[in-house]
């Protein structure tokens, strides 16, 4: 059952519950500000507090979160969000601090400490915590590349991106002024070395953007050759850290040969997704790129803290103030909580969970790349009878109380279904999901209508996306 909009709860009653009583003389506004600058009316509702609270509690009942159940969403790393992070983030000496105040040593210490820890985890030499999200981090990293090559080799204005890449990769490259060379993954789902070398030989390629393990959940076995080729021709290697989870505690992007990386704190480092943000996308670099980091350059080197308001080689500012501090704080708490021992287990168990699901599900579903996966794997709707599509499968999964995996991504697999359990799912939960997937497979065979008309057990049935796009209604 869907709730009425909050606007239907409007009352004709003043509400000053949240406003301090005016303790100075009540001068008429019009005596201070000319009337022509004032607004004529304001059409937002007055709603009683009890109605507001009930409204949002009821809305939350119609919403699924990680605390409700598993999100097997590939490339999203929907792991458990520890509650202690929420306590830490609400400490008033953090939540009530102004970004421009002088007495900010505690906040700066968190930023610097997290940067140091991220350097250790990834092998990079310096970090900026300014970017507000992964895509923002990508843009930052690419602008770093742009500035670097403007200084050293202006001919290099292209970026190589594999066809399995997340859409933000080419979009970010374009926002940074690069043109894109798309490389087709080979039959093993990996980057073809010969084509890579051919592209680099042209002399105008600034570098490559890679996710490793890639969006098929496969670790590119030629990674060292790839980064070597790029470097041989004077390029830089960018690592999209969305898939860092499986190699946490196992391997480091720096060792693979990457020069610039971004991380998603709201994926790998357990900060909550928030329904679509806020996130945080720190960018790490090797030594020679440190001078190009965005301002203010508050970063750490192994020897100590370096802070510069202005830096001659810097790409400039990419966001006001210090980054999404509230998110940074949560990630810091998470890393401290886990410690070395905890972090070392994340890679192992996330990969164990994914492979466990993979070998079971491939009994019924088509697995285009049938080899050991890392934290995620991709199924396809190939062979599903009766014209049942990946979308139908996903909607039917909702009926069984689970959230659906990522669908139709990566684009290189037709009807893709990308599954990532993460390390915080219990075996019994994985088994439950597997059983449901088997049941749905049978349904596709014998009762396809159940899938095509799904979902039926959710507050609302399948929605008309076509009319919504043709005649958008974006407000009441």
């Amino acid at each position: 059952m869907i709730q009425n909009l909050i606007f239907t709860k409007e009352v004709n009653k003043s509400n000053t519950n949240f406003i301090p009583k005016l303790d100075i003389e009540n001068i008429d506004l019009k005596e201070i500000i000319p009337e022509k600058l004032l607004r004529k009316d304001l059409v937002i509702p007055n709603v009683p507090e009890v109605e507001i609270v009930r409204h949002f509690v009821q809305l939350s009942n119609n919403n699924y979160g990680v605390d409700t159940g598993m999100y097997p969403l590939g490339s999203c790393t929907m792991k458990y969000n520890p509650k202690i992070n929420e306590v830490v983030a609400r400490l008033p000496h953090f939540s009530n601090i102004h970004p421009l105040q002088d007495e900010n040593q505690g906040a700066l210490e968190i930023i610097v400490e997290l940067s140091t820890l991220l350097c250790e985890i990834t092998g990079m030499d310096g970090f900026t915590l300014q970017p507000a999200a992964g895509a923002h981090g990508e843009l930052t990293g690419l602008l770093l590349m742009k500035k670097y090559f403007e200084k050293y080799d202006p001919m290099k204005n292209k970026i190589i991106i594999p066809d399995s890449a997340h859409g933000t990769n080419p979009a970010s490259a374009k926002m940074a002024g690069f043109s894109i060379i798309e490389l087709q993954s080979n039959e093993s789902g990996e980057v073809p070395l010969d084509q890579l070398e051919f592209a680099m030989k042209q002399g105008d390629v600034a570098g490559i953007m890679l996710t490793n393990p890639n969006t098929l959940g496969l670790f590119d076995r030629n990674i060292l050759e790839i980064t070597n080729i790029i470097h041989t021709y004077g390029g830089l290697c960018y690592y999209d850290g969305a898939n860092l989870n499986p190699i946490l505690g196992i391997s480091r992007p720096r060792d693979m040969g990457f020069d610039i990386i971004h991380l998603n704190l709201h994926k790998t480092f357990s900060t909550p997704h928030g329904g679509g943000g806020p996130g945080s996308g720190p960018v790490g670099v090797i030594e020679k790129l440190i001078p190009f980091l965005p301002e203010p350059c508050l970063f750490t080197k192994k020897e100590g803290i370096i802070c510069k308001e202005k830096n001659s080689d810097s790409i400039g500012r990419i966001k006001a103030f210090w980054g999404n501090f509230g998110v940074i704080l949560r990630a810091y708490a998470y890393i401290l909580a886990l410690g070395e021992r905890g972090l070392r287990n994340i890679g192992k168990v996330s990969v164990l969970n994914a492979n466990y699901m993979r070998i079971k599900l491939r009994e019924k579903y088509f697995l285009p790349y049938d080899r050991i996966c890392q934290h995620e794997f991709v199924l396809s709707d190939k062979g599903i009878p009766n014209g049942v599509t990946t979308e139908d499968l996903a909607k039917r999964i909702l009926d069984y109380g689970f959230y659906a995996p990522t669908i139709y991504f990566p684009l290189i697999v037709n009807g893709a279904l990308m599954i990532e359990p993460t390390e915080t799912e219990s075996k019994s939960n994985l088994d439950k999901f597997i059983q449901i997937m088997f049941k749905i497979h049978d349904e596709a065979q014998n009762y396809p209508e159940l899938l095509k008309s799904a979902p039926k057990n959710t507050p609302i049935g399948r929605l008309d996306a076509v009319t919504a796009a043709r005649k958008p209604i974006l407000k009441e």
Partner: protein
Amino acid sequence: MEYELRDDLKYTSTHEWVKIEETLTTIGISDYAQHQLGDIVFVELPDTGLVLEKGSNAAEIESVKAVGDLIMPLSGEIVEVNQNLIDSPEIINTSPYGEGWIIKVKISHTDELNDLLSYNDYKILIESEEK
């Protein structure tokens, strides 16, 4: 899968169809193309009077899940655009070769006509893409 093809039209490898008449050339997207896109929700039409080269983007066709470019199969001036598509973009789905035409062009380089695909060539192309 059976896609409709018209034998009185020419085609391109990017799935446009071309109807060549004396004064004007009409261009749209094929049945195969509209099927790939799915339900079309919006078409961004070019301004009339615009002169575009072969290979450039003339229009953008959006569905819920994808975006397709209408690529100029020939160079020329946009003389007319199908205004009905503004309110009813779905015409392209229901009548891709008829009422779903997209632009009318006055072509400038007749030698470019030789590069277009015949009905048979296009049929073979779709069959190979389907595999």
